[in-house]
């Protein structure tokens, strides 16, 4: 039971890292970037190559995060920026196309086989916690997710830049009418979201293993997280990720026959009861 809870939490934190950028970007610009998962995979592969070259997981963490941030930023400047004024259908089609381009590129560059990204030696082995013995690396994943969530929360809720982002999510036009260059704010948020996707990719490497196509499953899960939590909301992404992580994990254990459907049942239930998601961006008390 405790083990399953920790497993669920670990998956939840990976999903949170992946979904939070997707969610805030969507909330800010109503922009759907299906290629977000591709940046997750990019982070993982760059991390893998970095470990192979340097032997250091920590360098991999840095390189994978940076690579996704840079490629995401270039994609935005070269292509996605132009899609902002377009219909959601076009955004979905173009970014869906990017998924396949990313997939092929990964096959060409890194080959078509799965490989485990070696975790850091420091975190090898297990730790006794809550009366169970649990892999230390997985505890690290949970801790990292919580730390990033806390940092993002502080940045979003307690700083002026965070206030600008929230204002943009509430009302883009009014934010611009106050002299704020909302396009630049969006770019920063977009790149940060991509960086977090890359970070999630490296961190997932030792757990999920790295292969071309590893983005597909998590992309779907992270879209479910965004829908359940409420687009544009950090708290929503956090709570949504925990729900999805737990349902996935416990579903596999208790109801393996219907585990795949459980998640969509959850999403349908949330959408029926609260179409804006559980914790949509919006009014503060």
């Amino acid at each position: 039971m405790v083990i399953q809870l920790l497993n669920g939490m670990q998956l939840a934190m990976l999903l949170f890292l992946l979904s939070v950028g997707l969610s805030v970007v969507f909330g800010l610009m109503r922009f759907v970037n299906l290629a977000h998962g591709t940046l997750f995979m990019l982070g993982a592969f760059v991390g893998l190559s970095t470990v192979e070259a340097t032997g250091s997981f920590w360098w991999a963490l840095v390189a994978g995060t940076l690579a996704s941030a840079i490629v995401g930023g270039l994609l935005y400047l070269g292509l996605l920026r132009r899609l902002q004024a377009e219909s959601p259908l076009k955004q979905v089609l173009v970014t869906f196309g990017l998924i396949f381009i990313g997939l092929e590129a990964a096959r060409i560059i890194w080959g078509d086989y799965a490989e485990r990204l070696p975790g850091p030696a420091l975190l090898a082995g297990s730790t006794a916690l809550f009366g169970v013995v649990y892999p230390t690396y997985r505890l690290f994943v949970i801790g990292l997710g919580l730390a990033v969530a806390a940092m993002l929360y502080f940045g979003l809720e307690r700083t002026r830049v965070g206030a600008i982002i929230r204002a943009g999510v509430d009302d883009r036009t009014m934010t611009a009418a106050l002299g704020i260059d909302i396009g630049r704010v969006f770019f920063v948020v977009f790149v940060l979201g991509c960086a977090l996707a890359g970070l999630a990719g490296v961190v997932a490497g030792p757990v999920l293993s790295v292969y071309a196509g590893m983005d597909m499953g998590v992309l779907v899960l992270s879209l479910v997280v965004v829908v359940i939590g409420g687009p544009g909301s950090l708290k929503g992404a956090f709570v949504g990720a925990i729900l999805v992580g737990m349902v996935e994990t416990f579903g596999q254990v208790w109801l393996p026959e219907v585990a795949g459907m459980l998640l969509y049942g959850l999403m349908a239930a949330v959408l029926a009861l609260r179409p804006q998601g559980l914790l949509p961006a919006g009014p503060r008390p």
Partner: protein
Amino acid sequence: MSSAPLLSVDGLHVHYDRSHVLQGVDLEVPEGTVVALVGRNGAGKTTTLKAIMGIVRGSAGTVRFAGRAIAAERTDRIARLGIGYVPETRAIFPSLSVEEHLTLAARAGGWTLERVYDRFPRLAERRRAGGATLSGGEQQMLTIARAMTTGPRLLLLDEPTEGLAPLVVEEIAGMLRALKAEGMTLLLVEQNLAFALGFADMVVLLGRGQVRWTGAPAAFHAAPETRAWLAV
């Protein structure tokens, strides 16, 4: 008149899909004056302000502010040139606190927090409250104060007294008079004619997307256009 007006709009046309909402609007706002823009519901007053801010795009015409053509500029650039905007909807940010509204876009030369709280003690009391929890009057004070924190040279106000209790209207009117006394330039859309005529230096009457009359407030009621384009 030797110097050019701070704001001038010439031959401004705006279309929404197929409806031709502004059909060649001309108006001028000299520095340090208050110009009231009046007209029936649907005359195009809000659209005029939105076009000046670059929120809607004109299909023809020019807008000049402080000597620069701004009709093709982005909204945030127009705002940074020195135009503050108080929209009809107030556009309070529900997820921001009162104080965040006032620090979000603050720029040098604009009202400081102390100045806002001095003038609106109610906002000081509610500084931590969320934007969505404010009363209509508090929201209106906050929208005006928010615009003033950016240090504008010109303030566009879209029906700032609409839907407010008489006491609150008086409070807002008092603060607009104080702004005028300080030399602030205002373009004020107002349905409350008694207030508009008592306050403005010039009145521009808009009817079905065109300026039908421009003149001093004292001459407003005697003008034949007033009856044709304002009386319901």
